[in-house]
């Protein structure tokens, strides 16, 4: 393949990564924005989504006999289960440490190991796939400039699957829904009020602790949904949460902690550049540069690219 089509393939792969990353990072950003705590266990909810997707879809497929039912059931159930687990963790652990930022980090590190090791004990160390509900290969054209002017060609290997297009569409729809929820509904208003000033919100009768529990659950559900969507492309594995957490950290920090718009832009930036860089350079080197970049952004520009400076 020539350079042009190769680059386009990298961009398409990057766009899939960006879509999943945007979903996951928006959950992390939401939790940080409203609750002012960093959830280190966020990557494990992503892993949980993927593992639950495998469990649910294989259970449903064996009961109903194949088809897309398994995947549909996984999309509906896995985020709910992960969200419920997160709400339980919030009520039993985070609420009791009073959402103190540092103690919450230590507690969520504990939660990280509990979820990861529980997955190892029940799901096991193998990586397992989930069949996508549909997976048609769509060939893509490329414009070539010959001596007789531009014409369309169909380079071998330049294609995308319908499932990958579906992932991009689904992520965009969910993010639009999240944006509408935050800006256009009463629930969003309550969440924004809590984010702006916890004490005043409480004084106005907003049940802050229930809002916190709900936000923590919603954040985890978003990560789990990202996990469900990725599992037909990558396999489910109990250690997949670590890299995912790191990438979401990178996205959320570059985008500005707690800013949803910034998070989506940063996810596109990081997802696309990750796709492009890993195709042309060593992925390890790309990761080193990305982590160092993020550390330096935090050091020199803590408000991120679009976020507002902390008050």
């Amino acid at each position, binding site marked *: 393949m020539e350079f042009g089509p190769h680059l386009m393939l990298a961009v398409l792969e990057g766009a899939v990564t960006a879509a999943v990353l945007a979903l996951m990072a928006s959950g992390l950003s939401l939790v940080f924005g409203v609750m002012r705590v960093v959830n280190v266990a966020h990557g494990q909810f992503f892993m949980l989504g993927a593992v639950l997707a495998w469990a649910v879809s294989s259970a449903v497929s064996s009961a109903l006999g194949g088809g897309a039912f398994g995947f549909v059931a996984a999309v509906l159930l896995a985020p709910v289960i992960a969200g419920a687990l997160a709400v339980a963790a919030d009520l039993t652990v985070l609420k009791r440490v009073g959402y103190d930022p540092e103690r919450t980090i*230590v507690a969520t590190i504990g939660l990280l*190991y509990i979820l990861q090791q529980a997955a190892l*004990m029940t799901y096991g160390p193998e990586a397992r796939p989930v069949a996508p509900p549909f997976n048609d290969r769509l060939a893509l054209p490329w414009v070539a400039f010959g001596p007789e002017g531009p014409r369309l060609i169909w380079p071998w290997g330049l294609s995308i699957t319908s499932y990958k297009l579906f992932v991009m569409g689904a992520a965009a729809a969910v993010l639009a829904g999240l944006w509408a929820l935050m800006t256009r509904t009463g629930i969003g208003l309550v969440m924004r009020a809590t984010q702006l000033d916890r004490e005043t919100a409480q004084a106005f009768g907003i049940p802050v602790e229930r809002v916190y529990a709900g936000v923590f659950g919603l954040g985890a559900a978003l990560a789990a949904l990202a996990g469900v969507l990725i599992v037909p492309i990558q396999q489910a594995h109990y250690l997949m949460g670590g890299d995912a957490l790191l990438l979401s950290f990178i996205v959320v920090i570059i985008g500005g902690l707690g800013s949803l718009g910034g998070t989506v832009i940063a996810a596109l930036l990081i997802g696309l550049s990750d796709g492009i860089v890993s195709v042309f350079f060593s992925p390890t080197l790309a990761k080193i540069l990305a982590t160092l970049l993020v550390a330096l952004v935090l050091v020199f520009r803590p408000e991120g690219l679009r976020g507002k400076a902390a008050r």
Partner: protein
Amino acid sequence: MRGGRIIGLHLGLIAVLFALNFLLPAYSHGTVARVMVLATYAMGYNILFGYTGLLSLGHAMFFAAGMYGLAMPMTHLGLGAGPALLTGIGAAAVLSLGVGLLALRTRGVAFMIVTLMFAQAAWLTILLAGRWTRGDEGVVIPQADRVLLGLDLSDPQTRYLAALALFSAVLFGTLWLVRQPMGRVLVAIRENEDRAELLGYDTFRHKLGAVVLSGTVSGAAGAAYGLFFGYAGASFAETHYSIFPLLWVLLGGAGTVIGPFLGTLFMFYLIDLASGLTPAYMLIAGVALVLLTLFAPQGLAGEIRRRWWRGLP
């Protein structure tokens, strides 16, 4: 004399550990030697976390800097054990100075994430340089090279006593430090940084000093670990090894001199026990972290200090 009991307690610990050298069965003998080196790492971590109140999630990079700073010149340049020990400690000191200068521009949660990111980059760098470090597989330091000042460190007895010497030096070093003006300013920064600054202390320089001291001690532990047990591998630079000292110090008691040792000893045996039962032994670490945060943020030695002995350093 007020300090008498305190010095007595710590000398007593060293004496017990010395006596154990002759009493322990072979397996526990090796384990306690390992625990003493890792407790040195925990004590290094404690200088920053327990006494200065800065929570780092990236100390594995200092431990690994010491380990690779020792192992790389030994395997590739044929450096002797003594000079290599110094290059290991030096590498950790330089790295901690650089990381401190950058990371200390942030506070609180941002400091944790910056240290986590730097440590991640350091671990990936070790993997990237696989030609020399051999990545996850690691490098083995041959037995013949592990001779320091004429002492063969592959011999269990010698190794145990060398570990004890390192442990004692850092234990009494910490005890001395926390009674110095420097140590008291660190505690003041932990309790209320703005007030310490208002009182005229240069808090940035004190915090930088704490990062460098903490990183260097952690690096010394890493270098000693590589030299004593003859192996340097990338797994020591992974996030696990940044979380472990936090866990040990939290369990033993942050901001106490003896706490890191107690925490390391208990946790090491607990994880050792659990790893015989299930591959998911890190579950213990997770449960311990959550329970400690919820019910005993002071740790073992912190509880002793709260209930019985208010002057315990």
